């Protein structure tokens, strides 16, 4: 075993928050012992997070516990925490029934899938056949799709139980989940703060252990930023790695379905389940899917420098001005930790980095203005009765969409208009090409690139609601990765002051296209060797103080 105390460069140590404030130790039981939870989230304050999925599988197959008991314990916690969190828009009525079916299979010694008994939260812009799928929008209130998204179908086929549909910014447009038409989700680390977005519900649900893992979607950072805010692992796969069929499109060339877990292993196992070519999505890749789970070596088997020779590039532009000092020090702490693990660290510059944000907002808005045209009230969703056709369109859309969505539709429509196309859309595509090239060059020199996942920790609900530009600026760390189509893993690496127990900070690791395997391997080792940082929010750890 290696010593993994952070040794940030002396000159930077002043950025590090004092230890007493930044470490979170939780020892109180979260539930009475009668709840047969496999691995209590609080189980040990010092041991690294273990794969919940693997331990569930082990417990089920060794008949230590039934899927029904497991599901009940999660549902109990979900019901206790939900009034404060509001992570879910809909809950499944079939959880216990599906758990029972798994138990019966186990009873009959039949094979059960690798996700058997695993409760999965699904972002509400991903179609599910047995629950409404609203994308957090009034325009789709009570809309029930006639099909499961491919990702959901695969989760179900492998035994996963969809526990419910998680809250989001309407159609994924937002960074706080405040733009949901239905409710505001709170951050489990501090319920007065946002969980990030747009997959805020999925992140909060995993953080608060309302479910084991969850699916989100990431167009400009919507998996990674909430993972950072909520102290969970968020994985944005390579564009095309996971089928988008059944994901309600926001910006088709950027959208990917991503995975949340409380450990790198869980995110990786979920990615294994949902990855691979789908004939229903022409942009899904035929690239072979390796077994990501083979990466997850137990910490006790690691050598002293398990990442020896791994070239890690720190993206210089991501530690510039505009990044909170607390975030900087947490990242620099992570840098030292990576050095301890044997990595070779160097700074890389991505000169086009700052262009990513405007390019992203032009492209994403342009595509969304087109993708959201179908919500016209004619075939499905809310229709406002009108005397003539244009009024039907106008009223249905005016009443159906929230202001953030309307703003992006307007921006996108403008950018695509005759006479403006070249100045906006086309220019942004050129920037995109530049960004792709600069990432390619940086990843030729480095195995992975690192940066903060967000320039700050979770902020207060309402803080940026009326300042969209400030909110958009928060996406600076993540949008470039979508423009380049690369995979990225965010995992908690430290804390800053704030809330009752500090606020988690996420480290973003960016890999070459279709090299999720490497990210998961590095992430897993990083996580398993990170000492004294346990990312269990007080809401869970304190046993749901009412």
């Amino acid at each position, binding site marked *: 075993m290696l010593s993994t105390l952070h040794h940030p460069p002396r000159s930077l140590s002043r950025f590090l928050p004092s230890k007493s404030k930044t470490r979170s130790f939780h020892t109180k039981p979260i539930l009475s012992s009668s709840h047969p939870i496999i691995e209590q989230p609080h189980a040990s304050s010092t041991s690294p997070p273990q794969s919940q999925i693997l331990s569930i599988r082990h417990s089920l197959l060794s008949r230590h516990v039934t899927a029904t008991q497991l599901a009940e314990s999660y549902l109990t916690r979900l019901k206790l925490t939900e009034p404060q969190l509001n992570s879910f828009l809909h809950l499944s009525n079939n959880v216990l029934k599906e758990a029972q079916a798994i138990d019966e299979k186990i009873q009959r010694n039949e094979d059960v899938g690798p996700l058997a008994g695993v409760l999965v939260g699904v972002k509400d812009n991903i179609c599910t056949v047995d629950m409404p799928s609203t994308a957090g929008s009034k325009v789709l209130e009570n809309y029930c799709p006639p*099909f499961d998204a491919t990702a959901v179908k695969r989760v179900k086929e492998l035994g996963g139980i969809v526990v419910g549909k998680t809250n989001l910014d309407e159609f994924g447009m937002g960074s706080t989940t405040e733009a949901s038409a239905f409710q505001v989700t709170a951050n489990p680390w501090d319920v007065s703060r946002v969980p990030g977005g747009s997959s805020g519900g999925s992140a909060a649900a995993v953080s608060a252990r309302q479910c084991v893992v969850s699916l989100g979607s990431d167009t400009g950072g919507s998996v990674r930023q909430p993972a950072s805010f909520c102290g969970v692992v968020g994985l944005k796969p390579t564009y095309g790695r996971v089928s988008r069929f059944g994901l309600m499109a926001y910006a088709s060339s950027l959208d990917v379905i991503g995975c949340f877990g409380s450990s790198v292993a869980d995110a990786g196992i979920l990615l294994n389940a949902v990855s691979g070519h789908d004939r229903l999505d*022409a942009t899904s890749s035929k690239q072979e899917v390796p077994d990501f789970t083979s990466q997850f070596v137990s910490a006790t088997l690691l050598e002293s420098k398990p990442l020896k020779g791994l070239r890690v590039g720190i993206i210089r532009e991501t530690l510039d001005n505009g990044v909170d000092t607390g975030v900087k020090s947490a990242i620099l702490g992570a840098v030292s930790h990576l050095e301890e693990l044997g990595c070779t660290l160097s700074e890389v510059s991505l000169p086009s980095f700052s262009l990513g944000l405007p390019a992203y907002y032009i492209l994403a808005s342009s595509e969304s203005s*087109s993708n959201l*045209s179908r919500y016209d009230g004619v*075939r499905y969703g809310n229709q406002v009765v009108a005397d003539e056709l244009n009024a039907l369109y106008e009223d249905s859309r005016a009443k159906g969409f929230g202001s953030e969505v309307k703003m992006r539709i307007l921006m996108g429509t403008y950018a695509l208009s005759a006479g403006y196309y070249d100045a906006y859309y086309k220019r942004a595509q050129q920037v995109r090409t530049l960004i792709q090239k600069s990432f390619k060059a940086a990843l030729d020199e480095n195995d992975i690139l690192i940066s903060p996942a967000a320039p700050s920790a979770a902020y207060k609900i309402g803080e940026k609601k009326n300042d969209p530009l400030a909110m958009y600026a928060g996406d600076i760390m993540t949008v470039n990765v979508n423009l380049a189509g690369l995979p990225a893993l965010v995992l908690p690496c430290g804390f800053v002051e704030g809330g009752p127990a500090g606020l988690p900070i996420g480290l973003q690791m960016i890999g070459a296209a279709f090299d999720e395997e490497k990210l998961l391997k590095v992430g897993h080792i990083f996580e398993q060797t990170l000492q004294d940082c346990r990312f269990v929010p007080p809401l869970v750890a304190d046993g749901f103080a009412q």
Partner: protein
Amino acid sequence: MASTLFRTIQTHSFMLYPTTLLRRSNGVFYCTMKSTHSQTATQEKQQIRVTPQNQQNKAKTLDKIAKDYEAIIGIETHVQLSTLTKAFCGCPYNYGSQPNTSICPICMGLPGALPVLNSKVIESAVKLGLALNCKLSLNSKFDRKQYFYPDLPKGYQISQFDIPIATGGYLDVDLPIEFGGGHRRFGITRVHMEEDAGKLLHSEDGDYSQVDLNRAGVPLLEIVSEPDMRTGVEAAEYAAELQRLVRYLGVSNGNMQEGSLRCDVNVSIRPVGQLEFGTKVEIKNLNSFSSINRAIDFEIARQALLYSQGQGDQIVQETRLWEEGAQKTITMRKKEGLSDYRYFPEPDLPEVILSAEYINSISSSLPELPEMKRQRYEKMGLSMQDVLFLANDMNVAQFFDATIAKGADVKLAANWIMGDIAAYMKNEKLSINEIKLSSEELAELIASIKSSTISGKIGKEILFELMAKGGTVKRIIEERDLVQIVDPSEIEKMVNKVLSENPKQLEQYRGGKTKLQGFFAGQVMKISKGKANPGLLNKILIEKLNAKS
């Protein structure tokens, strides 16, 4: 189907159009433009029932006016592909099926559904692109064309904008003889792939409309011509040739009534000698080649009249609707400036990349196309009228080719097909594939007549039996003992018999009433049950009749 045999363009001399214009403007005169019956396969005549003299004079004046102007005509054609499934989903499409029975989440544009391109669409586009002598884009892409309409489920149409799959080709057309004939080459600007929209069904009282999405997502090829046509006839012939082409290629049924082939025509006129184009008007609702022809000629006359009266500024850029009943075009909508479709590349579909190998394999699998067929037939020595008839319908051409491949005489085969067979098909409303006659048997029939095994008259009888009931020529000849009698002594016996049985007539004949030769010939034929070789019969008969005995 039978109607497809006949060239569907109806003949109208240009002079007539001003008369319809007059009818429209003062409503007093009446003339019918309707084509009534067809004489032969390629000739259709229209009749004017009432044409008052003064109207004819006015028509002549207008005709003169129109002669001072030149029309510029371009056509946009939408061809619906007859692929088994739609362009981007697995739904089949059958014209006329119950509304909304052939739809799925993808063609309904449900949230989360994605398009996946049917590779047959590319194949069809490449086929047509090659057949139209176009340059193919090795890298093309799809774009979204955005507008709101209830028949457009996604709020955008998947189409191709700045990089169509094929550009810069041409189409060769042979004009029918009755229009003066002649060869024309019309430029093709581009061919691109796109999807069709659904249909709106309006309630009778206009209170509500319903959406039928069966057609939504059906693949189309849009073919844009250069503005190379100058008359309605040329435009209609262009469209007819395009129809032949898609049918020959098997990419579409090309049926205009079902909307599988839809033509929108752009017409402008300019004074002869002027270089700039005039203001163009788009005409829609053209459901047949003849309506293309008539609508254009009407529109040319309308514009020419306005010009000549100094009201050229009343010709505005607009979409006009052809009204078949009234035989005129009316304003449908004025162009609201340039509509902005906000095209951008379709992010849900990868680029369309064609390899040289793929193009070559399609190219080598192309059938003989109408133009090549016509050239070949012409070289065989057939008249242009025959050529145009035979090459018009691919199945007829194949039947003809198969018949002559069996050794049948080219001209005889053409005559049989264009004559009795075509007439039968028309009467029975059958296509050439539906009649029971096979090309083998037609060849056999022609050979039997040529070898004098049967007479032409009997051949005709056998033909009708073959068309209606099938069977083989040999069997019918055998069963009915129809072999022609070519033995002179046998015929002589019959002649002798007839002469001896009709002494009175013989006397009259020899008394100078030589017309009676026909009577005797008929009698001999009757005894022979029609089997006597007519040549021999006449020869022997004349010898006997004139013999001084």
